[in-house]
């Protein structure tokens, strides 16, 4: 029935199929919740209150930047004190009215009255604004307990959501970028379809070499300088390097047009498929976790670098799926039509063929996100790659492993990892069923 509908579109059909799977739909909503938690983490778990009334001043500490410093005057205009937002203990201030975040602790802040693994329902202590040590008020109770140095577990879990979602997004973003482009080129051109004059082929290879030399070899010190100043600067320098490499390659390709000899201008085919397939085979024959651990041991410790490494080692599956789809698509009528209309290969690949190849690739990306999160938490669990001061689910679980009495440090972070991975796997599985009924299990 649906097929005869005039407004029939594959997207609508797939979505209708997806919606039939109730568990997957629930997973999708849960994912949305996770995204919201990740986005609003600083307003859910924070040392600083959302709103505070202090000596007649209205403050919004949670929304201010970390470095903010205020001179506080009372209503008569007398100077009281200088408030440095990030190091002030807001719990000790005499606030006339205050709204705390739901979890009034930051992930890294150490509560020195509840050190040494305070249990969720056990005895917890608190220093009130008069300086007395009392039993903890229910508002400030560490509801999921603390770790050995008094960091709040609930807050760590909330902020860990951010990292785990980002790991999935960034690393799979990189992996999809590499995988889709390489897979598309390999599948579309195969070993024989990409033809160019011999001189152009050679000069392109030479141009890539020169591009890498000027883009990366020459700029080696500029790059390392930029990365040492911060990941943002590093990325900009990296993009500039890639730009230089591409421009130089292009220059050599243009140059090849100027050279006219009969033998040099003979068309040769570029074995695109062989290049890509060998690359995939190579990467697949090294155990991935081993490769990732080795690289993270060599480079600087940073969560961004971990994401990038997971991305660069994780594109093979996506490339294989894209390649297989393109092998199928390239003989279909609409691609042939595009070619006979004289469209350039790039336009045919990315504008006409790619949108029709993305469905199975999407599924493999969704599975990939789950495995990226698994790898990152595994690395943090081993204490590799991610810096010690960043709280992640894996590093929390590791703390629990080292002290088995603190069961809350095992159950809660472990469940967080487990649930997130399940959500992604569920969504991936359901969308595979929805997008490609042939594969339905």
């Amino acid at each position, binding site marked *: 029935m649906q097929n005869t509908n005039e407004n029939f579109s594959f997207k609508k059909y797939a979505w209708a199929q997806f919606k039939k799977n109730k568990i997957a739909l629930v997973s999708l909503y849960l994912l949305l919740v996770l995204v919201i938690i990740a986005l609003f983490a600083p307003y859910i778990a924070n040392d600083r209150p959302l709103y505070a009334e202090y000596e007649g001043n209205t403050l919004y500490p949670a929304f201010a930047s970390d470095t903010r410093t205020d001179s506080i005057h009372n209503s008569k205009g007398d100077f009281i004190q200088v408030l440095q937002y990030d190091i002030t203990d807001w719990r000790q201030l005499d606030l006339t009215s205050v709204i705390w975040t739901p979890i009034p602790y930051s992930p890294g802040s150490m509560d020195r009255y509840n050190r040494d693994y305070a249990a969720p329902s056990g005895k917890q202590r608190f220093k009130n604004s008069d300086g007395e040590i009392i039993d903890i008020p229910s508002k400030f109770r560490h509801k999921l307990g603390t770790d050995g140095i008094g960091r709040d577990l609930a807050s760590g879990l909330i902020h860990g959501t951010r990292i785990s979602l980002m790991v999935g997004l960034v690393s799979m973003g990189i992996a999809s970028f590499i995988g889709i482009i390489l897979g598309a080129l390999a599948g579309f051109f195969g070993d024989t379809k990409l033809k160019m004059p011999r001189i152009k082929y050679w000069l392109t290879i030479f141009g890539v070499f020169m591009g890498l030399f000027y883009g990366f070899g020459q700029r080696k010190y500029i790059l390392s300088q930029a990365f040492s100043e911060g990941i943002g600067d590093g990325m900009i320098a990296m993009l500039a390097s890639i730009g230089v490499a591409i421009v130089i390659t292009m220059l050599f390709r243009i140059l090849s047009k100027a050279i006219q000899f009969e033998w040099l201008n003979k068309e040769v085919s570029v074995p695109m498929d062989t290049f890509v397939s060998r690359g995939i085979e190579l990467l697949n024959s090294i155990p991935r976790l081993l490769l990732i651990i080795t690289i993270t041991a060599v480079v600087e410790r940073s969560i961004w670098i971990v994401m990038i490494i997971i991305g660069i080692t994780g594109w093979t599956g996506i490339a294989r799926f894209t390649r297989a789809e393109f092998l199928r698509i390239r003989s279909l009528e609409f691609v042939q039509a595009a070619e006979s209309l004289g469209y350039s290969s790039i336009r045919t690949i990315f504008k006409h063929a790619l949108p029709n190849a993305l469905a199975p690739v999407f599924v493999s990306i969704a599975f990939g996100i789950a495995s990226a999160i698994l790898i990152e938490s*595994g690395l943090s669990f081993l204490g590799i790659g991610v810096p010690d001061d960043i709280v992640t689910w894996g590093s929390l679980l590791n703390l629990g492993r080292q002290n088995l009495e603190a069961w809350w440090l095992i159950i809660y972070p472990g469940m967080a990892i487990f649930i997130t991975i399940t959500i992604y796997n569920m969504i991936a599985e359901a969308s595979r069923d929805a997008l490609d009924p042939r594969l339905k299990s």
Partner: protein
Amino acid sequence: MFKYALKRILTFIPMLIAISLLSFVISINAPGDPVERLSKAAGSEGSAEQQSGASKKIKQELRKKLGLDLPIFYFSITDLAASDTLYKVQDKYHKANLEALTHQSGNWRAVSDYYSSLLNLQKAHQKIDAKKIVANDSSLSLNIVNEAANQFGFEIGSLLETSDKTIIPLKFEKMNSLLQNHVFLSDLKNPLFNVQQSREGLFKNATRWKTYIPTISWYGGKNQYHLWLLGNGKDRKGLLRGDFGISYIDSQPIESKIWQKVGISFSLSLISIFLAYLISIPIGIYSAYKKDSAADKGMSLVLFVLYSMPSFFVATLLLLQFANPDNLSWFPVSGIQDPTIFDPNWNLWMKLKHRMPFLILPIITYTYGSFAFLSRIMRVGMIDVVSQDYIRTARAKGLGEGKVILKHALRNSLLPVITVFAAIFPMAIGGSIIIEVIFSIPGMGVEVLNSILNYDYPMIITVFTLSGFLTMVGYLVADLLYAVVDPRISYK
């Protein structure tokens, strides 16, 4: 089929070379200097005087023995300005600094002048004898002299390792002020002047254009990679002849280190794969037998959930529940034997009996990792096969359901399961790092992790290459097994 296998084996060679190159590239970029680490491990760390003397010679010999005084590869791609003899500089940090300086100036000769003038300064500095100075001039105290000399030495050391244009003038300033304040350092005046002169020469004679011209310098067969791959015909035999080199951590041959550890990892993965098959094949059969029943649907959901559960979480949960005095203290927390009771002279049965309690939790975790995955594949494969025409034919001709499933369907549904078999061997050599770390099993996983964390790159390269080789062998074996299981597949 034999021809096919041979052809496949031939493709191993370029792949293995690529893998070894990849791991080689990663490891030469590792921070730290292996010779420093090895000599430290040997206990020859001492004061400055000692270092300059005997231990320096030891280090030099060590470097030569490990082949670290050779160029890295057959050729190197650099720019015109870079020196092709830079590899002869021994200190890794000096080497990096000289490279950076050459990049700034473009004039290798000027850079090497600067470097040798700095080394001269260092030599002159080492000649300063605090005790002699104090003996000559009684107004000085030994502490002051030592402190000034040490400070000067520190500045020289940092000059040798920095190329930062803003820091270097500051260092010069500091050294000059030290010279002014302390007359007894006057021996250093001339060498320091030379250093400053040559430093200026770096920029006066700069030929920066040279850094924009790429060149290839050729080193020939005497290089580290060649030595490692093929040996030198004398004490090193090379990887291809089964010599993996020696470990940078403890100077043990890699080969014996691997042999010591691989047994436990291999047996664990073998046992667990066997158990996983034992569980997952009946599950697949059952699912196909009772397809779409409540039991099947429930099982598929449970398998899915189990599949998403990270094995390190499972392992920690097991420890929490079964190896924890608060809950059930049934099993020991870590290790594979109790060193106070264990006797290496026991026979196999005694050893096994003693180790059993240690190994149960790891085996459960190991099995779990492959079981959930295998069962899912098995179930999907089985259901797929059961819905095919020839099964319908088998049913139509009146065969019993049991015979249909076990005789006709099972064999074909085994295909995807075979693929997993290919993963056993590489798993043994790489070990399951996380599980071995959790249970403190002294297998390959822990060994590999340690060597990575200690930049023991002969070990890392060996493990990479071996596991790459075994993975490819595994795929090949799997492909050949396909042909055995499914007569339709042939490789002709």
